[in-house]
């Protein structure tokens, strides 16, 4: 009989299973109030819940039979030939791993590099066919160029001694086929595998390699759960009967019946493969769609007893909706699969990158926040606005916008979240400026009585050189307390308000120093201690580095006596900062992994727990704070679009954003009365300039000026000036007469986000932003008649391509498309079928457009594609196209010179790429931020400004100058 204790554990465990993470915590709080041991036990079991899902789901019988089966195969084939124990080339063969369609696979040790590899020997019947052999070599060599985490790496191709083999990465794990048990996969697992395979395909497709044989047998899941795609391009090698069609691999060989072969072959074919047509990259996407369908439902999309039936079904029928077979499938995922499985190639995903980004977005939606309708790569604010006002994707996307404004110079090119989101502003915050420095102040800290404000002045970001300043509130002048201009971070007052602690960083030697508030010499308090705060009169909490952990949280006395570890973050994570709750039970921990800031965590002061993530989902969380009553947690976090402040009810409310301005907010010091907080607000200033042979001329004198455009005759400069610093995306249009310096506002009161001037300088087309809607308007530049609306509804990115034609972007049913129309607004036609995010540029000859597409990765949201206007395959210009640091990302600016002899691409610098008669550069760095890669491109001119617009002739251009400022503000709390 089960003990009472076990019964208790079991009941609580079962009761918690259907609950969300937060609900579980709450329920545990109640159920285990006086029984921490029970809580530990149940939590420990729950920790295995996810992993246990697949555990033991294949009966022992199957496991053993499979193992035996392998053994059998080995035994039978080793009777004919075994290479075990032999050395081929410099590979010492250790054991046989299996046999597949492409031959026999051995585990071998590379005696030169002392690593294990898998050697795949070509079957003899192919190895003896010279044509097959050369095809094998060619394909394997091509595939060996693929270097991607989700592609099984090919190390070597050889046919030494008449034995053709490939040496490839040795993998631990099993094929996806083996994991398929006729049951649906967990959605998360499916999305992970799906997006990884798509990423692998994308990498291969970019180098012109089509897999041709994507199926569960060719997708390997290693022991860490990562997907590895096998046998790229090899399908092409193995053709039977000398057939010239692109038949996929027939894995199986002679033992399979004729019927079995046919079914197996057809099972993951695309319609074009089945029909024997020429294949392109989209065939792989169809096959991936089939794999995803099977993972989602446990069933083949097209099944039948004979190949003829499968064929017919593949070519004519629509598979049963996945959600009918598995109701757990999110609607968005079903749409992704449906799009991949379109029988017409043109209706499918045009690239693996787009499919991947959709899968990632579904995955992100699954992980947190409300579901957003997806599918097409990009979607405008319409989605965001249909969401609840706070949290989730909508805000995330909206947020990206605000980061973008920081670089308003580039505004016009930036993604399409740029509309004022009235719905997002649920929390109304009032700003009161506390400091007024021309440079930057960061890291605000308030004394316990709330009357003194400490800060670090001088650094541009939150870790840089500077000195500690102190200001008596409300009106005192800031006083400088330290004078060493060393690298500093983090400030905290001692409980009696007499000292301020700060971290001094000398390389990786991080020390805590204190300085008296009344002035005096700073002194070192503790070595190897950073982010120190007082948690009582006698105790401090700080981060320290040890041999084993990059940075963990500890408490101790000021002399480091009684040191106790509170929290050791996951491997390779560093816990940089910590904030104790007013009831002294919880800590908000700020940490970093190898890639940057991670979400904040809530961990118990009692220690012994890894805690859980809090604050905005998947955000870079850099500072946190508590309200004095402990009811609210505050965060400074970048959830995809720049740093803003968030709050969340303790312990498990929804994170909601509380600042939305065009600025960025970092650092939080909550006042003792809990009614306001102090934060460092960053903003940027921008002026527009013209460069001519005579030199540089500043044109704008006040306000934030951006988008400078030189008229065709070079006599005028048009530009936008931001109207309201808190409403970022719009400005008023100005024109300046360069010879006289005369400036005027052209359309006072009209909010414009983008504009374009006709080549004859007569007409202006612009996007008017009004109450969250954008529409296109046309006006003669002499303003003899008022502007008239050209395109109602949601439209943007207008560009004159000639005096008579305009390209633009219009939203239709949630998707955005590039259109062209006559300048009078008639005859609008779609240019490319793809759902894009924004139109960045049209080549002067109107033959190529550059569009931006959301990649699904909030850290690197932009992928740029160049599409031929007359149809044809798009080209990816860059994969990592988001410009900036981890903390700010915006789209690059892309422009052709008006004579189409050069392309201008601006990141934080501008690169001028000679085109030598082509429409596009031969290649851009995969990562636009990679200076080294740029340097390797021949003939490129680098200009040290982030915003350049080519003028009417190569000697003239307009540009922006941008500067950053940070000051402290008091924000009233909602």
């Amino acid at each position, binding site marked *: 009989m089960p003990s009472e204790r076990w019964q208790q554990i079991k009941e609580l*465990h079962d009761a918690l299973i259907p609950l969300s993470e937060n609900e579980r915590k709450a329920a545990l709080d109640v159920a285990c109030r006086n029984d921490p041991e029970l809580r530990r036990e149940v939590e420990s079991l729950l920790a295995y819940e996810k992993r246990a899902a697949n555990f033991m789901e294949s009966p022992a019988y199957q496991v053993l039979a499979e193992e035996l089966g392998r053994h059998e195969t080995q035994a039978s084939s080793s009777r004919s030939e075994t290479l075990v124990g032999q050395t081929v080339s410099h590979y010492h063969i250790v054991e046989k791993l299996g046999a597949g369609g492409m031959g026999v696979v051995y585990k071998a040790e590379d005696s030169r590099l002392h690593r294990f590899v898998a050697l795949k020997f070509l079957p003899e019947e192919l190895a003896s066919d010279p044509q097959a052999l050369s095809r094998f070599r060619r394909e394997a060599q091509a595939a060996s160029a693929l270097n991607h985490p989700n592609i099984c790496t090919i190390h070597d191709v050889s046919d030494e001694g008449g034995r053709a083999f490939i040496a490839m990465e040795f993998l631990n794990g099993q094929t996806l086929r083996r994991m398929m048990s006729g049951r649906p996969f967990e959605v998360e697992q499916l999305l992970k595998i799906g997006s990884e395979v798509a990423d692998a395909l994308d990498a291969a497709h970019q180098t012109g390699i089509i897999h041709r044989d994507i199926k569960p047998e060719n997708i390997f899941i290693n022991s860490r759960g990562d997907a590895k795609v096998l046998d790229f391009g090899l399908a092409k090698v193995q053709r039977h009967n000398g057939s010239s069609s692109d038949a996929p691999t027939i894995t199986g060989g002679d033992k399979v019946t004729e019927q079995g072969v046919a079914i197996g072959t057809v099972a993951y074919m695309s319609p074009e493969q089945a029909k024997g047509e020429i294949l392109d990259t989209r065939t792989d996407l169809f096959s991936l769609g089939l794999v995803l369908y099977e993972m989602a439902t446990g069933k083949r999309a097209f099944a039948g007893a004979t190949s003829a039936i499968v064929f017919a079904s593949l070519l004519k029928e629509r598979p049963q909706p996945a959600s009918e077979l598995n109701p757990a499938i999110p609607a968005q995922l079903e749409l992704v699969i449906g799009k991949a499985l379109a029988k017409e190639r043109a209706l499918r995903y045009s690239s693996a990158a787009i499919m991947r980004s959709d899968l990632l977005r579904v995955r992100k939606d699954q992980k947190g926040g409300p579901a957003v309708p997806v599918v097409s790569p990009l979607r405008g604010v319409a989605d965001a606005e249909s969401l609840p006002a706070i949290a989730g994707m909508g805000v995330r996307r909206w947020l990206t916008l605000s980061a973008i404004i920081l670089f308003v110079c580039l505004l016009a090119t930036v993604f399409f979240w740029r509309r004022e989101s009235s719905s997002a502003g649920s929390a109304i915050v009032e700003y009161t400026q506390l400091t007024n420095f021309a440079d930057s102040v960061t890291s605000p800290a308030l004394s316990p009585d709330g009357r003194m404000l400490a800060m670090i002045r001088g650094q541009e970001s939150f870790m840089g050189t500077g000195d500690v300043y102190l200001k008596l509130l409300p009106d005192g002048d800031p006083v400088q307390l330290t004078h060493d201009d060393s690298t500093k971070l983090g400030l905290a007052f001692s409980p009696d308000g007499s000292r301020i602690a700060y971290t001094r960083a000398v390389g990786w030697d991080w020390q805590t120093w204190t300085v008296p508030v009344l002035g005096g010499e700073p002194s070192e308090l503790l070595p190897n201690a950073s982010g120190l705060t007082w948690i009582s009169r006698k105790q401090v909490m700080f981060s320290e580095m040890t041999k084993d952990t990059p940075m963990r949280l500890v408490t101790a006395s000021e002399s480091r006596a009684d040191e106790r570890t509170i929290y050791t973050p996951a491997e390779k994570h560093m816990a940089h900062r910590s904030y104790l709750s007013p009831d002294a039970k919880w800590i908000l921990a700020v940490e970093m992994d190898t890639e940057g800031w991670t979400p904040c965590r809530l961990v118990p002061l009692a220690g012994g727990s890894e805690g859980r993530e809090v604050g905005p989902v998947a955000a870079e969380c850099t500072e946190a704070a508590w309200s004095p009553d402990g009811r609210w947690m505050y965060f400074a976090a970048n959830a995809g679009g720049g740093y803003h402040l968030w709050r969340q009810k303790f312990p498990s409310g929804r994170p909601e954003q509380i600042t939305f301005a065009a600025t960025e907010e970092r650092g939080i010091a909550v006042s003792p009365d809990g009614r306001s907080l102090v934060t460092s607000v960053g903003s940027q200033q921008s002026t527009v300039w013209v460069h001519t042979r005579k030199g540089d001329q500043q044109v704008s004198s006040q306000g934030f000026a951006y988008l400078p455009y030189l008229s065709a005759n070079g006599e005028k400069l048009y530009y936008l000036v931001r109207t309201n610093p808190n409403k970022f995306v719009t400005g008023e249009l100005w024109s300046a007469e360069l010879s006289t310096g005369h400036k005027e506002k052209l359309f006072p009161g009209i909010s414009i986000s983008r504009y374009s001037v006709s080549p004859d300088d007569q007409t202006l087309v612009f996007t008017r932003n009004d109450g969250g809607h954008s529409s296109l308007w046309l006006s003669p530049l002499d303003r003899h008649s008022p502007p008239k609306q050209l395109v109602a509804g949601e439209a943007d990115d207008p560009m004159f391509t000639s005096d008579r034609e305009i390209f633009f972007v219009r939203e239709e049913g949630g998707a955005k498309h590039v259109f062209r129309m006559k300048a009078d607004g008639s005859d609008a036609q779609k240019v490319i079928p793809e759902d894009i995010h924004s139109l960045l540029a049209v080549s002067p000859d109107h033959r190529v457009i550059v569009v931006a597409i959301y990649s699904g990765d909030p850290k690197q949201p932009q992928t740029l594609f160049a599409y031929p206007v007359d149809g044809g395959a798009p080209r990816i210009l860059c994969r990592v196209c988001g410009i900036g640091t981890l903390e700010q990302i915006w789209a690059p600016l892309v422009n052709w010179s008006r004579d189409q002899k050069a392309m201008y691409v601006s990141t934080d610098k501008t690169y001028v790429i000679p085109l030598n008669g082509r429409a596009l550069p031969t290649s851009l760095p995969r990562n636009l931020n990679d200076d080294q890669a740029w340097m390797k491109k021949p003939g490129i001119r680098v200009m040290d400004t982030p915003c350049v617009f080519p003028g009417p002739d190569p000697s003239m251009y307009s540009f922006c100058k941008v500067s950053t400022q940070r000051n402290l503000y008091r924000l009233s709390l909602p």
Partner: protein
Amino acid sequence: MELSGKNEVTRLLQAWSAGDESALDKLTPLIYAELRRLAHHYMVRERPGHTLQPTALVNEVYLRLVDSPGIEWQSRSHFFGICARLMRRILIDSARSRRYQKRAGNAVHISLEEATITGAEPADELIALDAALSEFADIDERASRVVELRFFGGLSVDEVANFLGVSQETVFRDWRLAKTWLLRRLSEGGHRAV
């Protein structure tokens, strides 16, 4: 491979279930042979176009072993229950012998359950699992029985419920918790007081 006589198997099974341990020694090679036959079948399944449901596969073994309407089994599920225990014995024995073979240098590369316990060979894992399951039986006898029937016996939730005379929901809950407990036990290695 055809079994030499299904009635013989049946008789041995009955004898074993009645407590005659020596019957097992005679049964094992017969079942083992059948296992091999299916294992071979399995390799074929690895190829495209063939998907056999694991439960169906195990049922097939049973049906092949005992395909005689005249046998006095109280019920089909009772028979499965007996078979599950038998299977556990045989499979663990087999795993032990495979481990022995492996030590003797005849390594086989395959993993029991990808995302669970990495590093170990399936044979080792089966043995460890068997030990953990015996431990678990002291804590929750019924749930351990559910594991035996599901994992070693290959029965469906429905069949287990039928056999144990409890609701499917109960079986499902027992199964879920038992898996979690066992996985934790195997992952942590050490003993844990409950």
